[in-house]
């Protein structure tokens, strides 16, 4: 097909994909594929890794090396790949349940090590694949099938946590702001070290329906009307009740495989 990004997709027999109509994961995948395409990377040197969940189905559609691991285990699996083949660009894409519930520990430890991974965290505020249970990002009071009276747990601030754990690049966007998201993914891929992008997404089938948020369009309208770019935030209260998008944190720190090279140097000298 005469489409620019076609070469990065497994168009021949994997599409249409299994995601629901209007699911934000598709838009995030769209932005990711374009980011890859525009970075003019050799697709043979990219590995996209996921766990289990709707979001984790993404790798199956991308025409590069793809690794659909166990629930929660995308990051440690990616760790093995990245260290075995440091020349590869390793991108992790998975859901909030996968990366923060069962996989939360790997997330903070990889950040701490500052391994050169690009992590795209699709936050749809629930466990989509298993049918809409609440997740560690479900805002208090919202419903999931396992929170029929509204969730009583507080939600994680993913971006703050990534930063404190050691990530060198932390950003947020939404599935409404796909051009913006695409740009962030490009930046994250370029960044040496642990880079995280939280994609605020919609699960109209479950979370949206359970919480009476309307269809995908309604949810995107909400994201459109309630987002604020980080540069627009002049004082804390500007951000209240808003989704702050943009690069939230960036710093420089030695990347893990580079530091590890030093160990090799020392060891080989001895």
């Amino acid at each position, binding site marked *: 097909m005469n489409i620019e990004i076609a070469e990065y997709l497994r168009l021949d027999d994997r*599409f249409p994909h299994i995601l629901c109509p209007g699911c934000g994961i598709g838009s995030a995948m769209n932005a990711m594929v374009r980011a890859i395409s525009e970075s003019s990377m050799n697709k043979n040197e990219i590995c996209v890794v996921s766990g289990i969940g709707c979001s984790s189905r993404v790798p199956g559609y991308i025409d590069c090396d793809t690794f659909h691991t166990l629930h929660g285990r995308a990051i440690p699996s990616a760790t093995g790949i990245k260290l075995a083949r440091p020349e590869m660009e390793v991108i992790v894409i998975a859901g909030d349940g996968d990366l923060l519930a069962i996989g939360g520990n790997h997330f903070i430890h990889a950040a701490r090590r500052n391994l050169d991974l690009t992590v795209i965290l699709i936050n749809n505020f629930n466990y989509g694949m298993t049918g809409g249970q609440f997740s560690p990002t479900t805002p208090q009071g919202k419903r999931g099938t396992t929170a029929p009276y509204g969730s009583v747990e507080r939600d994680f601030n993913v971006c703050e946590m990534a930063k404190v754990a050691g990530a060198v690049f932390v950003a947020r966007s939404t599935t409404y702001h796909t051009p913006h998201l695409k740009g962030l993914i490009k930046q994250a891929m370029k960044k040496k070290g642990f880079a995280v992008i939280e994609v605020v997404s919609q699960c109209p089938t479950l979370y949206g329906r359970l919480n009476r948020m309307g269809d995908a369009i309604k949810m995107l309208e909400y994201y459109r009307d309630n987002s604020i770019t980080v540069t627009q935030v002049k004082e804390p209260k500007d951000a209240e009740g808003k989704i702050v998008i943009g690069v939230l944190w960036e710093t420089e720190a030695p990347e893990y495989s580079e530091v590890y090279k030093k160990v090799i140097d020392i060891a080989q000298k001895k």
Partner: protein
Amino acid sequence: MKKSNPNPVVQTAKTGIEISIIKEFCKGCGICVEFCPKDVLALGSDLKTNCINIEACNGDALCELRCPDFAIFVKNPKKKAIKK
């Protein structure tokens, strides 16, 4: 393992802008329709997106970028050069 070859429906505007829609992929979510600033698109009776006003298209390709299903593509001869 090549099995299917998605067959897009293509329309070209006088401006040279071209919109391709892969009906097979479109799930009719309406995102492209709703957020098109120029009302170029509409859901048809087939519950898929349709290009109803190609001439109005400004070529910003927002539909293409937001579509969760890789079902709509816009070619804008003017933009092409800038992109890569």
